[in-house]
């Protein structure tokens, strides 16, 4: 199953992949590239990953979310490469019988992905400068 992709992310494919007749609730979180950050005008973002650990970490988070919240499906896919405003950087998809745990699980999935998966974003501003966004040190 794809967890990192250099191509535009396909939500419909992810929804088809996670179909589950026993699940009444579907929660999707998607992160998109917005045109501003800290009052600076953003032109584009470059995402890079350390793939051997990033792929393993995402797969671990998917399993952890299912175990921890008792949801039947959790899939996470992150895009890497150069993204323009409005492009989708990540989809987190959770399905479960009821909506309470689906919301909790999706929130945990995105929070955890941001803090545990070796992916970095460099923000390119309209004034020509660029900055690597501050991140969370990996647990060692």
């Amino acid at each position, binding site marked *: 199953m794809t967890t990192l992709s250099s191509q535009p992310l396909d939500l419909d494919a992810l929804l088809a992949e996670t179909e589950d007749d026993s699940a009444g609730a579907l929660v999707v979180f998607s992160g998109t590239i917005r045109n501003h950050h800290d009052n600076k005008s953003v032109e584009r973002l470059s995402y890079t990953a350390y793939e*051997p650990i990033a792929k393993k970490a995402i797969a671990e988070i998917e399993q952890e979310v299912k175990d921890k919240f008792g949801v039947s499906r959790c899939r996470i896919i992150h895009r890497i490469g150069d993204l323009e405003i409005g492009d989708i950087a990540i989809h987190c998809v959770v399905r479960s019988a009821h909506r309470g745990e689906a919301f909790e699980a999706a929130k945990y999935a995105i929070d955890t*992905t941001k803090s545990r998966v*070796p992916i*970095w974003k460099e923000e390119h501003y309209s004034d020509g400068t660029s900055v*690597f966004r501050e*991140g*969370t040190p990996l647990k*060692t």
Partner: protein
Amino acid sequence: MLKIHCLGILQSKVGQAVCEVDWPQNNSIETALATLVEAHPAVASELPRCACAIGDEIVPRSYQLQAGDELVLLPPVGGG
């Protein structure tokens, strides 16, 4: 020579994705990082918050590097 992969902000500080440092075999990551800082002082302030990896495993800085190992330095992460 030891290959050190510098990712994220480290790559921009070092100016390249991979750098090679002289390195007495069978020494720890800690020692290798000291050698890296000599060659690239700009990374010094970043290293305390970096994790170290060999292949697909995060390893402690006490890890004894083996022949053929390539060290990967992972600065603080933030996808999404």
